[in-house]
């Protein structure tokens, strides 16, 4: 695909089309609702303390849904403190565009830094996870 579609590469489109962490789980310890009032993206996020499991029910764009998916992979097994650090590192990647080798697949969203109005789509799941973590404490 041409430059115009750079952000919509395989990892993003794959996770958007075939989400693996979507849906309401049977057991969870906290849940939180996130939305972007400016554009209407919505995510309902479930958090299970054991193994830091994240699931989501999302209505929104490919970037937001792929970001929620990659986030669920990235935080699995992490402690709340590690997740908070990861969120800060991720936000740095998507705002600066500089990839961080420690973040693995999350770097798939680094390009979003060039699409300023879309950064908030990528960060919405993380902000919502922040709310769920607070509730889980």
């Amino acid at each position, binding site marked *: 695909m041409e430059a115009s579609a750079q952000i*919509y590469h395989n990892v993003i489109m794959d996770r958007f089309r075939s989400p693996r962490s979507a849906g309401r789980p049977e057991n969870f310890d906290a849940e939180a609702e996130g939305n972007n009032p400016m*554009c209407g993206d919505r995510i309902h996020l479930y958090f299970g303390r054991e193994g830091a499991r994240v699931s989501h029910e999302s*209505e929104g764009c490919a*970037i937001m849904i792929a970001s929620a998916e990659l986030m669920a992979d990235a935080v699995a097994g992490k402690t709340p403190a590690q997740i908070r650090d990861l969120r800060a590192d991720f936000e740095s990647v998507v705002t600066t565009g500089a990839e961080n080798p420690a973040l693995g697949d999350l770097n798939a969203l680094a390009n979003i830094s060039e*699409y300023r109005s*879309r950064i908030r789509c990528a960060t919405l799941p993380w902000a919502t996870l922040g709310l769920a973590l607070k509730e889980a404490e």
Partner: protein
Amino acid sequence: MSASIKLQPFDLAAIRRDFPILESQVHGRRLVFLDSAASAQKPRAVIDAMVFAMEHQYANVHRGLHWMSERTSDAYEAVRDKVAKLLNAASRDEIVFTRNGTESINLVAYTYGRAILQPGDAVVVSEMEHHANLVPWQMLRDAHGVELRIVKITDAGEVDFNSLEEQFADGRVKLLAVTHMSNVLGTYTPVERLAKFAHERGAKILLDGCQAIVHRQVDVQAIDADFYVFSGHKLYGPSGIGILYAKREILESMPPFMGGGDMISSVSYERSTWAKPPHRFEAGTPAILETIGLGAAIDYVEAIGFPAIAAHERELTEHAIAVLSEISGLRILGSAQDRGGVISFTMEGAHAHDIATLLDRQGIAVRAGHHCAEPLMGRLGVTATARASFALYTTIEEIDALAAGLIRVKQVFG
């Protein structure tokens, strides 16, 4: 249309040269600007009028006794006459300058709503209102005990008169506040019929003309509108200037909106008395340059003429509906019989934001989201749409570029 205005032939190439920004490149492509319903681009005449004022004719208005202030006041007040003529208002004193359409509606809700409407009275709005014509009435309801009712629209996106009858049945409705043209569906509402309907039942009517004023000749006396609001920036003028038209006797019955300079008759430490309309509603130094810019925009539009603008935009809209309908998986929202150059659509498998981003990378600017009409999105069963909107400078080729761009979106998301 006044006979004194000499109409020019509709020369699209010449019109486009009047808008310097249309030469811009975005992401290495010529800008295809299909977001004029959010805010329109500005012709050279508007830019020049504002620059001329700043360079040669600027001071505060209504205050100075000096030459510069007098001349600036003249230029500023001349725009009130232009707006009165544009709307065919009975008097220039029926034209209030505000910041935008939103402020105009808030002004009515705050003053007419609190002073004239009584607790227990009802206000009716439609399902397809912009937030600007919904939220101020919710605030009035919560502060003042006025009931807010919502009239349904049909699946085609037209006002449902059966629902309207039901909402008015108990005789408590005192104000019907509806859009003249939906910013999402492109529907024109039958404003003369709505005004007659409201008046026969003892209610006033407020029309949100932010979209309609750009595309059609509006005659507030022929419509028999009690209130008509619009903003300058969609009418090829600058942002920061809006208009509230209201019938003289209604304005005279309304208390001030904001207090301050320019809106008083006399002031003592104990009390103040109010100026007559329209100045009663224009506290503080107004948007002088923006008002002058709006005057130039009105001159510009009237020189081209609404019949020519409407004919051009009708051609654009018909073409757009035809070419977009050929794209499989694309759904155009609304199918009102009387509709204008605002087309909202969804595409199977692709969210509106993704559509907008992919189009943007091809230099095509559309809007995506809920268009400040979140409840309407729910009514239509969508969370967001993409929207292409047309202006007098839009070309058929730009609509074809949109269609080609959407086919690329399908390639990514198909």
